[in-house]
């Protein structure tokens, strides 16, 4: 029986000393999915990544990866996953080919099979003419491609990436996503990544929004946005608290003040613009109407802005 889930996490709790980094996290990731953990720094996603990659031991709760227990069968799990860390894990004093060779040896690949895989990876990631170059001479985008080639060399069924687009320019970022989607399409690899970039999480099949060590929402980006409902109306005003109170009183709507702006969600946004402008003429500086973004989802779920959370979040 082939289990459909690539990753099953249940009741996961993790502490660094006194600080609670993960607070009862449970979720399931399907095979062949591109899954993102989105959250501000300090939200717990890096801790979760470390646990999934078996870098740190499970303290409490359970992790099942490809039907194996990550705590008791770490060795078998390691053979089946590819890990791309946020900090580059390449040896800069070695060439691209030497780095791949070193990786192959750690994963028990050698001889013809290794040479074939190396050729395949170098071609797939456009590195064939750079194989003999020292890694320290490569650009950030190229290094990330070598990391990917390395992470996929042993044909993992699950690829884990921690903040993969950190330090990449927009072009290299787009390439990265193209590669990830291709890996999933061609090899059926499940891709799990963490990110603190909202626009990046949008490219995943499903995403889990993490805040303060908990999963606050989990679904496809579209469904998460529709959960917020209709349009997002955001009003700029010198007196946000008073205006919010007036809107609540006059229309009986749930209104919040975030970052000095009054905001609420309505299905028929444009009509509300006219209604608000006439009703509260003189108290409003500007009104914006937009389709909800993942940021709106985050606000709806946590009551504060994404960037704010990042600033108050304790560093991991």
């Amino acid at each position, binding site marked *: 029986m*082939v289990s459909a889930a690539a990753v099953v996490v249940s009741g996961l709790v993790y502490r660094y000393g006194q600080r609670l980094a993960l607070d009862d996290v449970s979720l399931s990731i399907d095979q062949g999915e591109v899954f993102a953990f989105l959250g501000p720094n300090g939200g717990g996603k890096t801790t979760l990544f470390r646990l999934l990659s078996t870098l740190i031991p499970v303290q409490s709760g359970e992790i099942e990866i490809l039907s194996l227990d990550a705590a008791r069968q770490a060795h078998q799990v390691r053979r089946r996953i590819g890990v791309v860390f946020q900090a580059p894990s390449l040896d800069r004093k*070695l060439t691209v080919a030497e780095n791949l060779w070193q990786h192959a*040896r750690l994963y028990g690949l050698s001889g013809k099979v290794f040479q074939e895989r190396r050729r395949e990876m170098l071609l797939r990631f456009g590195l064939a003419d750079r194989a003999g170059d020292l890694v320290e001479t490569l650009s950030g985008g190229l290094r990330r491609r070598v990391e990917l080639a390395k992470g996929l060399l042993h044909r993992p069924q699950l690829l884990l990436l921690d903040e993969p687009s950190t330090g990449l320019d927009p072009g290299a970022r787009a390439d990265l996503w193209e590669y990830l989607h291709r890996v999933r399409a061609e090899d059926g690899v499940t891709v799990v990544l963490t990110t603190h970039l909202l626009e990046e999480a949008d490219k995943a099949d499903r995403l889990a929004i993490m805040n303060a060590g908990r999963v606050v929402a989990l679904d496809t980006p579209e469904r998460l946005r529709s959960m917020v409902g209709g349009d997002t109306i955001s009003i700029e005003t010198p007196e946000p608290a008073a205006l919010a109170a007036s809107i609540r009183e006059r229309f009986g709507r749930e209104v919040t003040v975030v970052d000095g702006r009054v905001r609420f969600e309505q299905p028929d946004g444009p009509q509300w613009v006219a209604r608000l402008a006439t009703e509260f003429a003189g108290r409003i500086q500007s009104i914006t109407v937009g389709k909800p973004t993942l940021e709106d989802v985050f606000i709806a779920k946590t009551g504060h802005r994404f960037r704010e959370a990042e600033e108050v979040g304790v560093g991991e």
Partner: protein
Amino acid sequence: MASDGVVLREGVALRPQPGGGSSDRDAHNSGSTIHSGSAVWSLCWREMLRFVRQRNRIVGAIGQPVLFWALFGAGLGPTFQLAGAGTDVSYREYFFPGTLALILLFTAIFSTISIIEDRREGFLQSVLVAPIPRWSMVLGKVLGGTVLAVAQGWLFLALGLTVGMKFSLPGVAAAGLFSFVVAFALTALGFVIAWRMDSTQGFHAIMSVFLLPMWLLSGAFFPAESGWLSWVMWANPLTYGVAGLRRLLYLGENAVAGSGWMAALPALAVCLTVTFAFAVATFAMSCWIANKRTTGDLL
């Protein structure tokens, strides 16, 4: 269990196995020893590649001890007199095995300091999540450092043959082999110290207050005479490494080997036994300390 029966080892491609569950475990067991050995070898080879690409390390590891040897030999030579002499061993000659030990120590230190760099640069993380036992990672690192140390030690031994020491040729060969054990013990000791360090500065501090004194009090620089200092020297495991090198260098040279000051050194069998035990103990400690997965492994 992996009921999907997917096997990945030793170049076997991912392929569903009709046998199901048990094949996974079998495949893993049969391939693991070769796999670990190959991982050890690759990590060891990596140390060598890195070494030759950082040439300044060679200068530091062999240049300084040779300079010490030449300068101390010239400066202390005229006043140096071994107790119960009767042999005309110069200070330069007395100091030779000690300098050899210093070369081994320096190279051991330089190569284990690289663990701190590996950790900081991120390379170590990928090794920590690789499907290899931790001891093979430790062995790869320690063997790499050992081979580099021994290679430089041999260069120095070759130098000793050309400048008129009374060492025998078989003696130099035997000392060359024994330096492997000494270097292994020192590299493993360096590993234990470096594993939990987060800065190379910290390692330098340990080097000044622990490793260099350990070398100074090993009979490398001056012989153990009497008093508390001699007790410290007898308790120092490196003393047996240096004495072993010294005894082996004079293998077959009975005029020197039979003299009074040599007789005061620990017997060869004791030197070999203690040094082997030292190597085993430091390696065991390295494996033990590296086996603990803690948040210290994180960047």
